[in-house]
């Protein structure tokens, strides 16, 4: 089983069927699989904030969604998380492919990556970094369950330790 398979299994089990994203090479194979699966509605957004807004609105209307993005996209989200997700108690699951570490070639990406966990901690959003294939289904499944039970957002971070092994070349 690939990490993409494990992600999709966890989403199905939690009845998450709306996916919004901003394109990313690492997440590309997962997005392609989701787009080819009639059980999911998959929407490309122009900005990550917008992608979060859509999933927030869907939740208010009774539908579960998740936002897919790269690390640098997360860096644009402090306002929407602090002013919409937290005060209105809207659980917004985020699946973030981690870039900016373990072989990053752009200083700007490395710097942006260093802001991610401090921002999550400052806003009080649960986050876990997934490094091993065996952990994917468990971590995503448990984090989704907790997000909906507690009505808090959650960030599931996919480490290069998990995702890089299957990639053929450099980004």
């Amino acid at each position, binding site marked *: 089983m690939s990490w993409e398979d494990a992600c999709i299994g966890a989403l199905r089990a939690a*009845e998450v*069927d*709306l996916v919004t994203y901003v394109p990313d090479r690492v997440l590309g194979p997962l997005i392609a699989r989701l787009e080819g699966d009639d059980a999911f*509605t998959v*929407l*490309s*957004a*122009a*900005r990550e*904030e*917008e*992608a*979060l*807004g*859509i*999933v*927030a*609105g*869907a*939740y*208010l*209307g*009774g*539908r579960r*969604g998740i936002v897919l993005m790269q690390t640098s996209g997360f860096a644009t989200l402090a*306002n*929407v998380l*602090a*002013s*919409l997700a937290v*005060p*209105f*108690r*809207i659980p917004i699951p985020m699946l973030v492919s981690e870039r900016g570490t373990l072989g990053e070639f752009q200083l700007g990406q490395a710097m942006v990556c260093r802001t991610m966990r401090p921002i999550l901690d400052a806003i009080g959003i649960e986050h876990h970094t997934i490094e091993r294939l065996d952990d994917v289904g468990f971590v995503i499944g448990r984090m989704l369950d907790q997000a909906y039970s507690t009505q808090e957002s959650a960030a599931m971070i996919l480490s290069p330790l998990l995702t890089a092994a299957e990639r053929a070349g450099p980004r």
Partner: protein
Amino acid sequence: MSGAALFSGSEGRADVEVLNRSELTARLVAQLDDEAVIGGIGNTHFDLWASGQRPENFYMLGSMGLAVPLGLGVALAQPQRAVFVLEGDGSLLMQLGSLGTVAASGVCNLAVFVWDNGSYQITGGQPAHTARGLDLVAMARGAGLADSTWVRDAEHFDELVERARQRRGPMFACARVDDRPPAGVTERDPARIRNRFVDALRPPARGTPARRRIGP
């Protein structure tokens, strides 16, 4: 007037009547039944609040520019319900890409009404790009929302609201409005706003086929 202006919806920003946001909001609400309304940040949701606090209203206490994405999410969750988004010109300018996302989504039950007063009224009336003639209707058309129009007058506004209630496709309408202050101020209680809205929109029990049915 050019020949092209004879066709419906071809008016430009300079051709339409300047209306009042509080009055238009009240006119909208008077026509509604169980439709959802998302009130964008600032005076837009203040006037929605002042119009009577329907439980199907949601008030954006922050997150400038995200009224359209939020409304799109509600529309995707509940295709049988018409969803109205009310947004200011300055706010929409922060998230123009969302118009392209609405067009790409294929939803039929979302209507975006924008109040164009040419300014950032709530921060002191500094001019927005719309004051120089930036045409948000042209931008919406360019984003793929074919049913985009300037609101000619109050009667035209009523017609557009009635058409939007029928969920025949995504609609975008922009009304020029004056700079009078809002008719009230929203009570800033996010928990109450959220719970009232969720309860009012509560769909059938989880796992039923209705929840799974999506899109037009």
